[in-house]
């Protein structure tokens, strides 16, 4: 007997359509179907609910009718995650785009899940505040997508990631009921911190409806320094000097081509704070960077440099994109492993690391590897082995569908996997939400 007939319900699309008509849920146009296509798999339906009640009704109907749902924001980039296991309806929350409650005096904000991060930041900037995350393409990233894909950027070095900023969440459960955890105050330990569970869960545990975050004041002054090193050994030494200097960098990024020689090896350090504090750190950095060229930008120019840095990995070429997580001290050793792999597989790569956090993004740039599953798999396995040997992990963030079909994008040996599977079973026993997209095919 095939796996499908054993495990998977046969979706009753007609019944689902009837339920939706009754609930008055807006459906997508042909363009929307293209937008929410995941790895070449078109959604069967595209839905735009406009209230939490509608989301709940869709979930109830989907559960009863055996329909799979993929929650989404703008949906242009649903590429993170595994191939959808079953035909699905995309459930986009872009109509949920209201700022629910901003309390400047308390440094908190509550936003609906479909609001774009850019719109949110613009609203907050009026009060000289921001949500201190800088995910790629903020205008194309919804609050729900930010949380579900656990997106972060260079500022995570000093500000933490979404999980550190999220203080409350309201989620529509797979059974079509609403449940919240946390609240709207910065400090709160009443009940379990379930918000963490939805961070990075890629929409497999619930549909995020609304989220509350703690905020920071916008730093009055910003500066970035960009230093060019001749090789990784020099970069490593400079990073060490930065680490031990009297500095409080907002971010420390390392960009390098592999193999070396294909371009410059660059370190970018950013500062944010009061005018005096930033100016003082710039002076320190200048003293540190003797021997390297140092280009400095301040104010709006610094903002532009940071935006490029934030988006670089997303916009850069290369369909095979990997993310390794390592101890910061293992960064150079990992780059050395990349060099070996590049020679062996005949590929070039662009490496972009959050050097202070040990997060390394690798874009593989030779098209042959992007498109042939087998060679991509060999490369991924080799690099995953290298990351593991250094005590780290490696996941595939983006790949061609045929590549994804040929390898496990998350890797095996995931700690506590049985617990994760039980969490999924507890919160989505019928497998309605994003089946197949998360670790071990959850």
């Amino acid at each position, binding site marked *: 007997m095939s796996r499908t007939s054993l495990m998977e319900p046969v979706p009753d699309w007609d019944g689902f359509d009837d339920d939706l008509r009754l609930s008055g849920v807006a459906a997508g146009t042909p363009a929307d179907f293209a937008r929410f296509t995941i790895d070449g798999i078109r959604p069967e339906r595209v839905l735009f609910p406009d209230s939490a009640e509608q989301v709940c009704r869709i979930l109830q109907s989907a559960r009863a009718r055996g329909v799979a749902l993929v929650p989404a924001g703008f949906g242009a980039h649903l590429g993170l995650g595994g191939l959808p296991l079953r035909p699905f309806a995309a459930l986009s929350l872009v109509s949920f785009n209201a700022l629910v409650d901003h309390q400047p005096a308390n440094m908190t904000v509550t936003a609906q899940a479909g609001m774009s991060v850019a719109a949110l930041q613009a609203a907050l900037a009026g009060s000289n505040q921001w949500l201190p995350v800088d995910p790629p393409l903020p205008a194309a990233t919804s609050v729900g997508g930010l949380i579900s894909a656990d997106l972060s950027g260079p500022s995570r070095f000093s500000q933490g990631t979404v999980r550190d900023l999220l203080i409350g969440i309201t989620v529509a459960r797979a059974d079509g009921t609403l449940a919240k955890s946390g609240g709207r105050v*910065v400090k709160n330990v*009443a009940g379990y911190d*379930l918000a963490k569970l939805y961070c990075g869960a890629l929409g497999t545990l619930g549909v995020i409806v609304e989220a509350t975050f703690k905020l920071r004041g916008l730093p009055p002054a910003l500066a970035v320094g960009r230093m060019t090193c001749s090789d990784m050994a020099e970069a490593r030494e400079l990073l060490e000097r930065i680490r031990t200097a009297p500095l409080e960098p907002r971010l420390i990024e390392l960009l390098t081509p592999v193999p070396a020689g294909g371009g410059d090896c660059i370190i970018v350090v950013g500062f944010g704070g009061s005018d005096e504090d930033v100016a003082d750190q710039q002076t320190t950095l200048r003293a540190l960077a003797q021997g390297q060229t140092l280009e400095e930008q301040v104010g709006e120019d610094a903002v532009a440099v940071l935006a490029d840095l934030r988006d670089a990995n997303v916009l850069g070429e290369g369909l095979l994109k990997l993310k390794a997580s390592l*101890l910061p001290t293992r960064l150079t050793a990992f780059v050395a492993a990349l060099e070996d792999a590049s020679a062996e597989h005949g590929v070039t790569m662009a490496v972009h690391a959050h050097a202070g956090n040990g997060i390394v993004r690798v874009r593989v740039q030779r098209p042959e590897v992007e498109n042939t599953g087998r060679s991509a798999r060999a490369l991924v396995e080799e690099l995953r082995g290298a990351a593991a040997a250094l005590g780290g*992990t490696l996941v595939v963030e983006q790949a061609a569908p045929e590549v994804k079909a040929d390898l496990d994008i998350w890797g095996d040996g995931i700690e506590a996997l049985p617990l994760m599977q039980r969490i999924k079973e507890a919160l989505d026993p019928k497998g309605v939400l994003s089946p197949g997209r998360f670790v071990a095919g959850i």
Partner: protein
Amino acid sequence: MATPRLVGWLQDIVGDDGVVSHPTELSVYDCDGYTLEKSAPDIVVLPRSTEEVAAVLKLLRREGVPFVPRGTGTGLSGGCLPLGAPVMVSLTRMNRILDLDPVNRRAVVQSGVINAWVSREAKPHGLHFVPDPSSQMACSIGGNVAENSGGPHTLKYGVTTNHVLGVTLVLPDGEVVSLGAMTEDAPGYDLLGVTVGSEGTFGIVTEAVLKLQPLPQACKTLLAVFDSVADGSAAVSAIIAGGIVPAALEMLDHMIIQAVEDAFHFGFPRDAGAVLIAELDGMEAGLEAAAGKVREICEANGATEIRVARDDREREALWKCRKRAFGALGRLAPNFCCQDGVVPPNRLPEIMERIAAIGEAYDLRIGNVFHAGDGNIHPILLYDERDRNETERVVAAGREILRECVRLGGSLTGEHGIGVEKVALMPLIFTPDDLRTMEEVRAVFDPDDCCNPNKIFPSAERQVEVRAPRRQAAM
């Protein structure tokens, strides 16, 4: 329940000196820092390693015996009160710092390690562990993880959950799992994030990977004196609204100032209505300007006097007064109950008024010492537990204060947890669906409800009522 057989089996695992079952010795374990309710376990077992914990839990599972984890018992919501859990697993012998990696800024510690030890060991490397509960000289890392503890300096830098990268957790069936990792962004659900703050209901944390932070380059500590808590609270709101994020913003009211002054002779003005301790840290440059701004805001809000700590010694003395404020209260009444509510910081003046009114209505003396910057209040209700009626009024007034916090948009607890103390109040902020979701997650870790049962959730069939104390409190 303390069958000789069970005691014997436990001794086989942890050694004869690792099991306590004599009634007099057990009385030490009959409450934590929350003394309104007491109940001693039948057996206390003190393992030394993750393997021993796992073996103990496997045995308890086989015998169908529920248990409660305990750190050092400084909890303030009755979290380690053994209700329906005959065996207590105490982690105090698991007190080794296993690894300290200054370059990657990580420490690996056993869960019984005392919070302050971590920063003490990290200090020579210019690092510290940020969460600094006022109990940091006594509380354990395991307790911090279980309660998601905060402290004065977590306003700017975040609470425990923001500083833990991984834990080793022994599940109630004895299985050992590792959640999180040495590295960031471990693939999979953030089970670590839910475990932090789960109040010991998911299993026993035996080890933790902690993030260490560089010590601030410089810091400036101001003490502003106000005629009233309302003036001080207004200053707090204005500081936050002004975009300044101090490292700490702590307030003490008149009653506490007097108690602290009697105990420590720091030189607090005895007639002040409130003092605000504001600490700013960061780069040397710019600190002076920020401190100037805080000073201006305090003056504009009626500060009658502002002092700046001249050196580290003065600063340390000031923090000692703040952190030992609770202890100093022993002089004022035989007993006290420290509440732990939260309001949005801009509602502080309102909640302070309400607390004063509640104190009058219930004829109770209530002092306030609190983390003002994040709206986390600690009203302290004084009483004498021999006076049954007064004790009951303390319980009722505490609940009323929390109700007011909720009404103002806040929460029932900012750092002490729900424990047994606040079980009955959970429906004030959570719907049955909210609570059901939490219980479903709990069941993933503890399907048999045998790890720290009867806590957090107000399920009708196992309602816990706060009772009058049965014995003289040990404060």
